[in-house]
């Protein structure tokens, strides 16, 4: 078993428990076990990312150092810290690049980390779990573990901004990505391409300008459903929250609006690999995917009753 040092980020412990639990379950199945860093701190994304504010870089660099120490305790662990959240992935990658390009910045940060014996040596690579799946496991390896192909599920990949931007953080081609597409196909689901695959979900405007988010979400969902999608697949807890929660509000307002469920890519994997449904935490979704999954016979059709 290859073990990876896994950095969850706060959302995976709060709003996206189903994302984390399914990811850990499938990681074990695929021999790339995600092992959580014992004491981790915020990736730093909530702080301003202005590059001259070095103090706000302490959090992400501390994450990299703690991960490095964690790796020393793991089995066959490559020098990589793995994230699930697109935003953590983006923040850690940006900062990791920045300190490797700028020794002076790193020295100043390390000066603050000295007392904790956590100085960072530029020796960790940041990876999103999708990159591990694509580059280390491979889609074929994933297909092999599928016991219940997701027949009837018409999934439209939604990347949001953070997986594909900026340059130093992207995990795939920013105009023609195919990682989510290939993954969806390897699970036996039908792929539905949408031109709004990275149209902004409205992001933090959810805090005080909900109308901006709802107008974005309406377009994203409409573009997918018009092309026949009955589900969206995402990798970002904030995109997921915005789309999921806004759809519920819109469905309430207009009877004509038909919401579709949102899945994290690891939830689709767990379903296809026959993991227990419980670990998806579907009850915490605003648009519950269970009716659709039942209709398609993907869950709850056990004849053992």
């Amino acid at each position: 078993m290859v073990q990876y040092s896994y950095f969850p980020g706060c959302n995976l412990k709060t709003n996206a428990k189903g994302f984390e639990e399914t990811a850990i379950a499938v990681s074990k199945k695929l021999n790339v076990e995600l092992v959580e860093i014992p004491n981790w701190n915020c990736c730093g994304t909530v702080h301003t990312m202005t590059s001259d504010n070095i103090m706000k870089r302490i959090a992400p660099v501390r994450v990299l150092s703690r991960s490095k120490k964690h790796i020393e305790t793991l089995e066959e662990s490559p020098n990589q810290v793995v994230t699930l959240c697109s935003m953590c992935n983006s923040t850690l990658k940006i900062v990791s690049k920045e300190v490797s390009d700028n020794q002076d910045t790193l020295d100043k940060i390390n000066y603050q980390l000295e007392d904790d014996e956590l100085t960072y040596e530029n020796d960790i690579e940041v990876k999103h779990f999708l990159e591990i799946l694509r580059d280390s496991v491979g889609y074929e390896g994933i297909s092999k573990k599928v016991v219940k192909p997701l027949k009837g599920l018409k999934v439209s990949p939604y990347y949001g901004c953070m997986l594909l931007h900026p340059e130093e953080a992207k995990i795939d081609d920013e105009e023609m990505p195919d990682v989510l597409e290939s993954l969806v196909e390897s699970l036996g689901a039908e792929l539905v391409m949408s031109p709004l695959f990275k149209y902004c979900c409205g992001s933090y405007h959810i805090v005080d300008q909900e109308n901006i988010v709802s107008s974005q979400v309406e377009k994203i969902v409409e573009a997918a459903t018009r092309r026949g999608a009955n589900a969206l697949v995402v990798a970002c807890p904030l995109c997921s929250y915005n789309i999921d929660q806004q759809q519920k509000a819109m469905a309430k307002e207009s009877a004509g609006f038909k919401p579709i469920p949102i899945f994290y890519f690891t939830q689709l994997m767990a379903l296809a690999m026959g993991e227990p449904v419980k670990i998806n935490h579907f009850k915490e979704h605003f648009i519950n995917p269970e009716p659709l999954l039942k209709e398609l016979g993907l869950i709850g059709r056990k004849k053992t009753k």
Partner: protein
Amino acid sequence: MSKTETKKENALPTVKIYIMGSAHEVPESLTIMKAMEYAGFKIKRGAGCRAGFCGACGTVYRKAGDYRLYAALACQTQVEDGMVLTQLPFIPAPKGIYDIDTLQPTESSILRYYPEVARCLSCNACSKVCPQDIQVMDFVQYSLQGQIDKAAEVSFDCVQCGLCAIRCPAEIPQYHVGMLARRLHGKYNTSTPETLLERVEEIENGTFEQGFEELLSLSKDGLKKRYTERDFVDQKKA
């Protein structure tokens, strides 16, 4: 003229310390708290248990030739030659007023009363200053992550001295956050111990009233006698 030439008859080796800037010659074996009293200060607010448990005597100091700012509990720390110190017996920090019965053991309860937790820069200045050697930043982060059980566990030894709060660039009152985490954990994540329920029932049934009445009826001398003759053996079991 010389203020420091006191207690000449004292043969104990002494050190020179600076309390709020003024020099005092004090026996080197004293704690900061006793040294302050030796120097003539009457401590009203910054002392409590004098045994390292109440957290009332937070003190900050620097040492001769050392740029660092140190912190300690005055009752637990011995003076050193050249120490420059002051007590901080009270830290102004916002304290949430909440009804624990109406909350949930989640990060949103923490953020509702202490939203500044989200400003944590992970600089760890709080852990470095903690006289109890608590990993303060870690429990703040656990609180933010909704891992209330871990936050409660890591903050368990906190004595609420508040020194962490004065070092925090994000202006978080960490010690209040830890208290809320422990209350949430105690209320929602752990079961009520049976022995506690039994004891509460005993109290409510008036089991101890007679004993209290007896004590309350004693004169001062009678109380003193009872106190000096007390033992901790359970008479019923003995």
